[in-house]
């Protein structure tokens, strides 16, 4: 699904050069659930941005779904982002004056879909996070956990193959965090590849594999669960095709 080879990312300002990532190589298989941990400033967000085509690496080769993306133009990168990737951010990032329906609708607006089709998808996505009844509400009328569920619905509405989450539970209390985690586990069980950045070791351990970053490099990697175990934790019944092994 995602293959990075010798990626480096350097931020240059007038006075300093920051090496956010260096000699960074990582392979994430289709259907995997990977957690990324590491101290602040270790390059987790930078990695996620590059993975999500939000930024370009300074050097290195990045293949998304078998395709080298380094030479793509803005239009193609935008289309890949729109079609293949879903994002969940720490601070939800809902548009305050759009209601829930309109917020979830945003990614679909950048595809050619009929309005009936869009409506159906948005409603299904909101249903899956249990907020279908509040479609007309504005984000500020919801709790933090509910807002993050809307953000999850928005990330899922386009049926992405890869879900990138940057501290999705960072602004939530543990009960809400657990709820959000359950959704992610469900999504993973349905076959979506997930890469999640987190500070919380307990949450990191709920993924299949944990990657630890220090100073822009992968410093350690550990298999946390087998796929079966992860599936069992969310009551996955095993009749759906599982993603390829690690």
């Amino acid at each position, binding site marked *: 699904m995602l293959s990075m080879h010798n990626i480096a990312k350097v931020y240059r300002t007038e006075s300093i050069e920051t090496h956010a990532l260096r000699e960074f190589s990582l392979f994430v298989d289709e259907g995997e659930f990977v957690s990324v941990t590491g101290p602040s400033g270790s390059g987790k*967000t930078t990695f996620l941005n590059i993975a999500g085509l*939000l*930024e370009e690496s300074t050097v290195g080769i990045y293949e998304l779904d078998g395709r080298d993306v380094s030479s793509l133009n803005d*239009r193609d990168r935008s289309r890949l*982002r*729109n079609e293949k990737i879903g*994002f969940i951010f720490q601070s939800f990032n809902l548009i305050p004056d759009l209601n829930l329906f309109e917020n979830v609708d945003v*990614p679909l607006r*950048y595809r050619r879909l009929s309005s009936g089709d869009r409506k159906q998808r948005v409603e299904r996505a909101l249903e899956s996070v249990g907020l279908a009844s509040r479609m007309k509400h504005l984000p500020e009328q919801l709790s933090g956990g509910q807002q993050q569920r809307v953000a999850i619905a928005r990330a899922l509405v386009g049926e992405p193959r890869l879900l990138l989450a940057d501290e999705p539970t*960072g602004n939530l209390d543990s009960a809400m965090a657990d709820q959000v985690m359950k959704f992610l586990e469900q999504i993973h069980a349905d076959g979506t590849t997930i890469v999640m950045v987190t500070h919380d070791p307990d949450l990191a351990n709920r993924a299949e594999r944990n990657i630890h970053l220090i100073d822009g490099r992968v410093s350690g990697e550990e298999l946390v669960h087998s796929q079966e175990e992860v599936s069992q934790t969310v009551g996955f019944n095993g009749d759906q095709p599982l993603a390829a092994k690690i």
Partner: protein
Amino acid sequence: MFNYNLKLSLKSMRRNPIMTGLMVAAIAVGIGISMTTLTVYYMMNGNPIPEKSDVLFAVTLDNWNPIRPFDDDRPERAPHQVTFHDAERLLAIGKGKRQTAMFESSLIIEPIDDEGLPFEAGARVTSADFFVMFNVPFIYGSGWDKSADAAAEPMVVLTKGLNERLFGGEDSVGNWLTMQGTRFLVTGVIDTWEPTPRFFDPINGGFQEINEMFIPYSLTRVLELTSAGSDWGWKSEEINSFEEWLNSEAVWVQYFVELESTRERDDYLVHLDAYVEEQKRLGRFERPLNNNIYDVMEWMDYHEVVANDAKILLGLSFLFLVVCLLSTIALMLTKFVGKKSEISLRRALGASRKVIFNQQIVEVAVIGFSGGLIGLSLAALGLQGIEYLYDAPAGLVKLDWVMMFTAIGIAIVSSMIAGLYPAWRVCQIPPAAQLKTQ
């Protein structure tokens, strides 16, 4: 996508009403002022009689001082009016398809009933062809016959306004009016007629109301009518009687001829030359032959009906529009800061730069459209102000459809141009800004 962008624009405008108000106001003021001057300019520049402007000609003959041209700055030009008796002779020969001579005068109208008071009214002293030549619309009756010109019969054609005043707007054809002790027969009442500019008399003002009535040219001699318009003379002549005045070299009559083909035009110039040659033999017209005809638009140019001030004003007002647009750009750039997070989010969710750019351009077009609409109302007010200031007849300067579409078009296009740079800035916002600002 357009509908979505439109919806987003309205949301974005509502999000910051004060900023939106300022942007719309800046464009509205710029459009209001530039449209006011543009309308005035456009009206001054308009063709007052498009259907006939190339077959109607003003005639000039050079009877001026042998040692000095009529206009020192333009020595090639003959005087722009002719003498009374030259006009009278040319009318009598009648070489064109139609021809008319005219000047402005004024007469006292005696009351029709016992209650009214006598009052003075402006008159255009002219000949029968005037009405047909210039496509004058009639409500009642018509102009007088050529026979009335020949016999100097007192007849009168009233404007709508004067007919309203005298006869309460009724069909007054066949009624009588007493002026200067003479009874005039009303032969017709004309409808509202506002050729702009007033092409047949730019000399006495291109933007004035037309005279209140029309009477036959041949009455000049009978009633000893004098011109209320401008006259010019160069020769010191001893004038002891009205007849001597009419036969003097003073020029105060405007002369027009209708000629349909190039051939008729050539023939007419030959005829004018022959006439002047004949007069030269009588000792007049001591300057070299210099007879000209000017069609309507040439005649407007000749008299510089579009004043230079109007052109300068037009330029200034468009500069002002530019200033307004520059402040709109500044406001847009300020607003840009508040857009960062939404735009980078939209970028992350799959909007390409081009899509974001289009979204911004639709937004500025909506702002331009709103500014244009308000600007139009300001222009309407401005034009009323101009009418009031310059005492122009009501309705002389008004916005027509062309001007309205022009105004809205200019507003939209210019605000889109103004929006280009801010929109470009907005679409440069990187999608990643979203994740990093946490």
